[in-house]
């Protein structure tokens, strides 16, 4: 995925000024950076949810987006929420039902297929939003702090489910987080963003070697 000369302003606040970035396909790229530096804005540019100047080569691509809050429709069941994003994808209704059953098995919500979001726990609801992202036939996945606000054991569980889903269907993933440990755990590449779209650090993780990780951790803490 390639972003070329992206400029984005809110009135007189320039969030990105002639910003360029190339992202490897089918890998997880983590974006770190302090609050307000433009991480969410960057995802919204890629998902065409906001206007901007410049070019991306994904303007006609299908994109999955996992938000920090689950954003489920309360009036639709778990299956209904998945169907909602699949309806516009040229699948037959048999195919849709099959996909829904398969993905619900992966996120361990087969039994909850016909429940409404208000009947789910927070962790279950977040699993539905993961399922929605992976059932959707996209090549690109955007994640905006999807594990924030979960308690530690639940977070571990959800991250495990994310890893299963990702290994099963490797999408080009941009993963925004505040949590350096999450980034070190999941990323193939870590980018630290500064104000005005300046890239403060850009490092690929070829291996999960302990020394390499702790060195990188120290570097990131120094910048942030």
């Amino acid at each position, binding site marked *: 995925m390639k972003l070329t000369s992206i400029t984005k302003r809110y009135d007189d606040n320039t969030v990105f000024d002639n910003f360029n970035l190339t992202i490897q396909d089918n890998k997880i790229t983590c974006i770190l950076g302090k609050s307000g530096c433009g991480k969410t804005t960057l995802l919204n540019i890629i998902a065409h949810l906001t206007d901007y100047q410049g070019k991306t080569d994904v303007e006609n691509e299908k994109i999955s987006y996992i938000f920090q809050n689950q954003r489920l*429709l309360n009036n639709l069941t778990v299956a209904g929420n998945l169907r909602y994003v699949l309806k516009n994808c040229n699948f037959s209704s048999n195919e849709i039902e099959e996909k829904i059953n398969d993905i619900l098995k992966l996120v361990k919500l087969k039994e909850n297929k016909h429940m409404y979001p208000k009947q789910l726990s927070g962790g279950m609801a977040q699993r539905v939003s993961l399922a929605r992202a992976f059932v959707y036939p996209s090549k690109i996945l955007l994640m905006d702090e999807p594990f924030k606000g979960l308690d530690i054991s639940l977070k571990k569980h959800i991250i495990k489910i994310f890893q299963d889903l990702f290994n099963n269907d490797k999408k080009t993933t941009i993963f925004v987080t505040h949590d350096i440990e999450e980034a070190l755990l999941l990323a193939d590449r870590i980018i630290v963003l500064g104000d005005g779209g300046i890239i403060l650090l850009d490092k690929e993780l070829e291996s999960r070697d302990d020394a390499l990780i702790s060195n990188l951790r120290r570097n990131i803490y120094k910048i942030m």
Partner: protein
Amino acid sequence: MKTNKLYKNIIYPVISLGLLILIWFVTAKVVDIELIIPSISATVKEFFALLGQKQFYSAILGTLNRTLISFLLAFIMAIALAIISAFLPFLNKLLSPIVTVVRAIPTMSLILLTIIWLNPQTSPLLIGFVIVFPIMYSSFYTAIISVDNDLIQMSKAYNVSKKDMVLSLYLPNIAPSFFDTVRSTISLNLKIIISAEVLAQTKISMGVMMQMSKAYLETAQLLAWTLVAIILSYLLEIIVYSIKKATIRWEK
């Protein structure tokens, strides 16, 4: 859960109704003047006497007819304008001061004014309309624009079609407050129409029947008519409520 519902839907209403009847009974006994506080038995007798009269049914039909016509007119206009306003913000800016002013007009001056302007048969229609339209318009407009922006954004990210967004996102999110508004305004409309009929002396109407009971000092009959009005407004609300329950299944 089950017993909770039983309490809420049956036991509490029965107790409060019983309390009301008890107060009525005691007051009637203490005052002991049928003209001022008719006894329960006299009122019930009048109520059944009314059921035997032809006039009774035509008066109810007349009033219901007026209620439904003015309600439907206000409803259709409120919905249409609320939808248009949601897309054209300037229309709402234009309408909301008018709505605020109209809502502030005392009901009685409105009734008296329209009686001067229109004839007794049509003025209740206008009054009902003017009272309920602003309430419905503001409530529908608020419901439409308060559909969760996060969900709209999510739908756009996943490229959901406009049609599916309207059917699965907009309509269901608007529906609960929509039904609640319809439910409260339809019974309000009935009450307003009856008041207007009393003052306008509308032919073939519940209002005029009440006015006559009062003129002949038939207090028990007046109370019996009041009972009829209560039952009607309750029935209207129940009808709307059942439609809501049948339509909205996800709010447990």
